[in-house]
Each structure stands twice: as structure tokens, then as C-alpha cells.
């Protein structure tokens, strides 16, 4: 493990009993903390104040909270107008609807206008679970990253979601943060440093690594467990937490590819346009590596418990291990 990062010690000693917390809670606390310091911050909700956890801010600062009703398109543009008047608006909804339904409004009225609106897309990925495929946003990274000026962030746990929200509030450009539903393992601690644009190695076995894993979001936990178990088999895997998807940390990604020559990407998102694509685009002209892509393979999601879905879509620890093993033997 990387000691400088103050990761959760249980990750390496007792990983099956690690604490769980909702990343939405991390976002909600982060927004409140940002709002305490900066009165320009306002929050908008499209009839989802509780399930997005924007209610933590709304309860404290009702005069800076705007209830839009179920109107995500207008929400994006209303936020643009507020930003033009000097506000720093956070718009909150499910990722399927924002940036899903309101993509053109985000493109034209936020990014083309170049105003600092922060887009919080919750219930991203298949962890959304029982609600089924309609509500599982697995295309949102692709939608957000093609927009000039947009920063795209994907936290690995609640602590990172909180740090990320606080830092996103301080930038002058549009930011998209994708957040899954439900409790996920706490990979980091409150002491773990976070900086937009920097990717950190979260798991590093002794000596040179054979394989590099580049992972974003809640699957960082599964990736670290897979790497740890493979270490015991003699396959040495480094795990890079790509919490900033755009702008990508070119140096960190290239260094890992140069060192290992073999890269596996892991994401709870479509392979097309997501983390795998970003990494492949980055490496192709700089440090071409043999790659494998773990993620959703051009299909829609469906109802189920998160662990059932992770198994079915091959994002569970054993599936990650077998992909790494196959690449190791290649």
C-alpha cells in the first residue's frame, strides 16, 4: 500500500469488514462546507432533494436553494443565468437526467458560455440497482468529457466525494461529478490528500509491477482487493485511482504504462467513451500498452442487487482477477 496517502488501514488488514458510507453523503457534507465559506454558492434540485443529499445544504441555507420541479433542462440554463450574475450554482439530479436529458443545455448555456456551473450526477452506474436500466447512467462520462472546458470527476468513496466537491466549488470552469447510489467501502480516510487533476497509485506491491490497473469510482475497492489477492499468487499489480477523468493526469498514466507495458482499465460505465477510452487515447500516441477493458460492454443495465449486477457485468473481484491473470499470461 501507499503510506503517504493515509488510506484506510482496514483495506489491507481486514478488507472484508471495511466501513461503508454513501458518496452522496460525502457530496452533501462537502457542499455544505463549501457553502459555509462562499456565499456565492447556490444549489438547485429537480425534485430530488433528499435522494441526492442536496438537502443537507438546503436545510442550512434555504435562501440559497432553488427547487426547480421536474425540469432538468431548465435547471441547467437557470444555473447558467445565475452564474452570469456571479453565483456558483450546483445543479443536482440523477446522472441519467443531468447530464443525460439536458446535455445540449449544458453544452450551450454552460460550457459554450463558459460559466462555473457544477453538475452533480447521482445514481451513476449499475449500483443504482433495483430501479433498473432506465435509471442506471452508464454513458455520462462520455457525455461530459466531450465538452470543452468541462472537468470530469469520479470519486472512489465518500471522503473523496467530499474533498472533490469542496475543490470543485473553487474552480472557475464547469465541473461534472458522477456519484453512485448507496453505501460503498471507505478506501480513503479524512487525511488522504486529494487534488483535481492528480491520479494517485493506491496499491503498490514491492518491486516492479507486472500489470497496471487504472480504475475510477467505487470499483477502486474491488481493484485493490483483486491486486492484493493476486500479489499472493505472485502477480504484482499497481492500482492507479483515476479520480479526475478530465483533464487526465498524463504523467501518472504514461508512467504506469511505461513501467508495466500492460494496462487494465476498470469502470462502472460503458467501455465506449469512458475511462478505458480516455486511457487508450492517452497511451496510443505516448506509451502504447497491451490493454484490457472492464466495464459495460455496449448493453443496458437491469434490476438487481448491486452485488448481483457487479457479478453479472463482470466487475466483481474475481472477474477483475481473471482479466488481469489473462493479460499477465499473454
Amino acid at each position, binding site marked *: 500500500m501507499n503510506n503517504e496517502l493515509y488510506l484506510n488501514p482496514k483495506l489491507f488488514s481486514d478488507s472484508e469488514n471495511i466501513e461503508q458510507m454513501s458518496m452522496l453523503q460525502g457530496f452533501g457534507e462537502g457542499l455544505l462546507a463549501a457553502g459555509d465559506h462562499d456565499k456565492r454558492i*447556490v444549489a438547485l434540485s429537480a425534485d430530488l432533494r433528499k435522494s441526492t443529499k442536496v438537502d443537507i445544504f438546503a436545510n442550512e441555507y434555504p*435562501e*440559497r436553494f*432553488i427547487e*426547480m*420541479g421536474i*425540469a432538468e*433542462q*431548465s435547471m*441547467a*440554463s*437557470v*444555473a*447558467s*443565468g*445565475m*452564474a*452570469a*450574475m*456571479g*453565483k456558483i*450554482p450546483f445543479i443536482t439530479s440523477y446522472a441519467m437526467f443531468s447530464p443525460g436529458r439536458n446535455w*445540449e*443545455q449544458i453544452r*450551450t*448555456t454552460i460550457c*459554450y*458560455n*463558459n460559466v462555473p456551473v457544477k453538475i452533480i450526477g447521482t445514481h451513476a452506474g449499475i449500483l443504482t440497482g433495483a430501479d433498473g436500466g432506465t435509471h442506471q447512467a452508464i454513458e455520462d462520462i462520455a457525455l461530459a468529457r466531450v465538452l470543452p472546458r468541462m472537468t470530469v470527476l469520479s470519486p472512489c468513496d465518500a471522503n473523496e466525494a467530499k474533498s472533490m466537491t469542496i475543490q470543485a466549488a473553487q474552480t472557475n470552469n464547469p465541473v461534472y461529478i458522477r456519484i453512485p447510489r448507496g453505501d460503498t467501502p471507505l478506501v480513503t480516510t479524512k487525511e488522504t490528500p486529494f487534488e483535481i487533476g492528480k491520479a494517485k497509485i493506491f496499491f503498490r506491491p514491492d518491486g516492479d509491477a507486472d500489470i497496471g490497473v487504472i480504475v475510477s469510482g467505487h470499483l477502486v475497492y474491488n481493484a485493490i482487493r483483486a491486486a492484493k489477492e493476486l500479489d499472493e499468487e505472485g502477480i504484482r499489480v499497481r492500482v492507479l485511482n483515476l479520480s479526475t477523468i478530465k483533464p487526465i493526469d498524463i504523467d501518472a498514466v504514461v508512467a504506469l504504462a511505461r513501467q508495466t507495458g500492460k494496462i487494465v482499465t476498470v469502470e462502472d460505465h460503458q467501455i465506449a467513451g469512458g475511462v478505458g477510452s480516455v486511457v487508450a487515447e492517452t497511451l496510443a500516441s505516448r506509451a502504447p500498452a497491451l490493454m484490457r477493458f472492464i466495464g459495460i460492454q455496449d448493453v443496458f443495465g437491469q434490476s438487481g442487487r448491486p452485488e448481483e449486477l457487479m457479478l453479472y457485468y463482470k466487475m466483481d473481484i474475481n472477474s477483475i482477477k481473471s482479466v488481469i491473470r489473462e493479460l499477465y499470461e499473454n
Partner: protein
Amino acid sequence: MSYLHSDKIKILETKASEIRQAIIDSVLNAESGHIAGALGMTDVFVLLYFHTLKHNPKDPLWEERDRLILSNGHICPALYTTMAYAGYFPIEELKTLRKFGSRLQGHPHREFLPGIETSSGPLGSGLSQAVGMTLADRIDRGRSSNRFFYCLVGDGELQEGQNWEAIQMAGKERLHNLIVIVDRNNIQIDGFTEDVMPLEPLQDKFEAFNWHVINASGHDFDDLDDAIIQAQAVFAKPTVIIAHTIPSKGLGVAERDFRWHGMPNKKIKIEKSKWKITI
């Protein structure tokens, strides 16, 4: 009741006539652009920039200014030309409309030209932005703020659903500093609005969303000015002025013809001498 002095009206009429010809010239020079809406709304732009708006062309970002949000960005030749005549930039620059490197983009871009409040073109999102600006103003200055937010929208544009999300919100929030002016010229690209997708009864629709509605002539400065003053006075609701306009107003060969929404088809041959404003 009339607030405008007849001398002032004469000045505005002369200005409007000059600006209309300059719009024609700039669009001809660009060899593309939208004529009908620009000429139809010229009188509205002239009244706003030469009489109504609190603004300073030499300090386009002056905090105390009223905001003018153009939602139907395609009629920007009227916006640019009026701004040039009001002193925002040299009239000469109108020749660069739609050319490479120009500040006068085919559809307005906020960052290219100071004084443009928002980038627009894709229809239906200007009104939401105006609602957001008015809301932010209310958070900062309360309900007695004396900044007004004028949002110009096309009539065909009201077929976009997002407008009605914004209209319901402005009604809910009682945004009395928001004044919307609809360019009711009855045409859109594919034909007359009432054939393509009817908007009527437009007044009833706005009223059902808790708006104050005023009908006005889009070419009568007195009538328009009265409507704006009334809109500024209404406190309980946002106001929409349905400005009844003649598309391509002043260009005899094109008036009321929906085919002139954009540049006329190359097959419609017009003699050079006919590209003249006749009012």
C-alpha cells in the same frame, strides 16, 4: 396615455430606418443570415437600446445595467447593428458579420463581444437563463431591485418545451423584474406558426401560468413604450409583451413571406435595387 415625446419618436424612427438598411447590407455582405426576424424586431431593439435600457456602451459590464437576453439568437444581425449604432463598437465592424475571426459570430457568443449577455442560437433556453439571472438578482438585492431583465424570444421558439419549464418557474417565483418580449411574427422556417404547430391561444397560455400579458404593436414606439412601462410597474407577476410584428418589415419584396426567415433561396432572384428599406 403617451410618455414619448413626438420628437423622440421621430428620432427613433429615423434610427430604425438606418439600422434596417444596415442590417440588410451586413447580411448581404455575409451572404447568409436571418433577415425576417431581424427586420421585424428592429423597432423593439431600437426602443430598448435608445430609450428603455439602463446601460453604458462604453462600459458594457457595468454592474447596474439592465440585462437584455436574446433567446432567438438567429436574429442577431438586429442586435449587432443596434449595438453598433448605440456605440458598443464601430459601425464599420458590421462588415465582418459571420466571417472568420469576427466578433460577430453567426449566432451570438458571450465571450466574443462584450455587451452580449449570453450565447444563444439553439432555441428555447434563453428564457431559463433570464429566469436564473432574475432569481440571482433577487437573492442579492431583494424584491425592490431596480435592475430589469428583458428576454426576447421568437414565437416559433415557444414550441420548445424548455420555455414552458421556465415560464412555470417565473410564475411560481413571481419574478416581476423579468419582462419577456415575444416576437409574434407568425412565421417559422417551415411556414406559418399556426400551420406548423399552433401557438394560440398564446395569451391564455401565459395567463394560465400566472403571467401578466400585454399585447402591443411591435412597430409603434408609443404603444411599445407604454407596454414596457406597464410591465415595469406590475409587481405580482412576470410580464410578457406579445409584440405583433411584420416579418421583414420595411423590405417590400419580403414582408410577411416565411421563405425569408433565412436568406432567400438562390432561385429567388432579387434585383440589387430592391434590397432597399422603404420606410
